[in-house]
């Protein structure tokens, strides 16, 4: 279970998170939506301890991580896998070395066992036989899939997705959405994604949270979100820049 309590974060004079309270139960598939620059990725990074809050707290399985130091956080982060917006593959390592990174860190498996796990993880994301390739040789969609394989190989309890479909064409984006959904169901992990793509949000999430002006403004199922008559939610899901303007 992940919980945030009155989470606040500012960068200089700009307050990005202004008292975020949320609770995500084990096994849930939650999507956080909101406008670009609204603090979605910042919130996601707080959940895994990549950023420290100015005020408030983050609890992972009941343990407060808001004030843990970097070494203390390493133990907590073993429960997490994260797919970054740019995939963030280590560009000096091959695909195999990227995917096997967490397994090699622990020195618990033989090279043969690691090879088998890497092959299985790549198969799960529909990529086979690319172990020897370097990240620079991959397309955007392939990079995201490799990033996902790297995040799931050690079977974390929580998987965080930061804008998983940004920068991809609609067909590749749809395949990534379906892949995330499949992984979420097959591995029975807690999935938390941030996106501003409503199609992606409805495909991945069972519950949608809307972040607006630094707070959780709305919570509901994908269906309830799409049908909401709240003007701010409606404006966002309909993609209207100015509600007063009518083109059609």
């Amino acid at each position, binding site marked *: 279970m992940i919980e945030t309590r009155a989470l606040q974060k500012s960068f200089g004079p700009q307050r990005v998170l202004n008292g975020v309270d949320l609770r995500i139960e084990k096994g849930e598939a939650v999507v956080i939506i909101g406008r670009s620059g609204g603090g979605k990725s910042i919130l996601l990074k707080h959940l895994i301890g*990549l950023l420290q809050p100015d005020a408030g707290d983050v609890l992972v399985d009941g343990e407060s991580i808001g004030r843990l130091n970097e070494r203390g956080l*390493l133990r907590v982060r073993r429960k997490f896998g994260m797919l970054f917006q740019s995939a*963030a593959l280590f560009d000096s390592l091959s695909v195999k070395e990227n995917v096997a990174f967490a397994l090699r*860190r622990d020195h618990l498996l033989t090279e043969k066992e690691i090879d088998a796990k890497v092959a299985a993880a790549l198969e799960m994301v529909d990529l086979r036989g690319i172990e020897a390739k370097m990240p620079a040789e991959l397309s955007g969609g392939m990079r995201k899939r490799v990033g996902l394989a*790297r995040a799931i190989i050690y079977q974390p309890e929580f998987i965080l997705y930061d804008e998983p479909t940004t920068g991809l064409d609609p067909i590749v984006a749809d395949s990534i959405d379906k892949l995330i959904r499949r992984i979420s169901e097959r591995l029975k992990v807690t999935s938390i994604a941030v996106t501003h793509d409503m199609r992606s949000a409805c495909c991945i999430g069972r519950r949608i949270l809307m972040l607006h002006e630094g707070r959780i403004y709305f919570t509901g199922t994908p269906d309830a979100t799409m049908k909401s008559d709240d003007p701010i939610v409606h404006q966002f899901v309909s993609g209207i820049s100015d509600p007063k303007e009518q083109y059609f």
Partner: protein
Amino acid sequence: MHSLAVKLVAESLEGTGRLGLLLVEVVRSLFTHKPDWRATVQQMHFVGVKSQSVVLITGAFTGMVLCAQTFFQFHKVKMDTATMAVVGVSMCSELGPVLTGLMVAGRVGAAIAAELGTMRVTEQIDALRSLATHPVDYLITPRMVATVITVPLLTAESITVGIASGYFVGVFLMGIDPAYLWHNMVRYTGAVDLAMGMIKAVIFGATIGLISCYKGLHCGTGAEGVGRATTEAVVYSSITILISNFFLTLALERLLAGL
């Protein structure tokens, strides 16, 4: 004007404090974390083997020009055979470590800051942290260990090549008697001079590694941030080497005087 000065002092103190904390974290990592030997050897290859040409050329031509200039002055007072004594002492205690440090700061410091800075702006360091790996264990400690081991080796090489080149210039170009030239150099260049140079080299290696890693880890956003981090890594490393060299000379002279 007053507030600007206060801001500059505050920023300098903050930077120094963070640098100190990074050093503490590296020392802690050395004692608590199993070292990544593969990464360390790779970094030693990058710092040591790939710096051969620049260090050899710098050492050789510094020894040669020092020998020539010393000879021109000493010849006026008929002290030709003392030329290599000056070259030996200067190369061992000052020029060898300082010039090697500056060359490595320029080549390696810039590369370290650029690599780590790029990793930071492309979220690779965040990815590393999300995979429950401390960036100091994986990225900083191997680089620090590599610079601390390799810079003294490169310095020793630079000193050797500098003295050999100076000797060659003295004997074959200036026509100094080789026996007296060698005798005087050995007589006036002591183990203390070499020890001073090696101690300085270890400190300069740590300085280059620490400052370059710090600048890379804390670089600003985008290509501009990486560019600035790279420049600052070279400038701050070089300035620190030059300033600390003076104080190290005074301190080591006293410490090693009794040996």
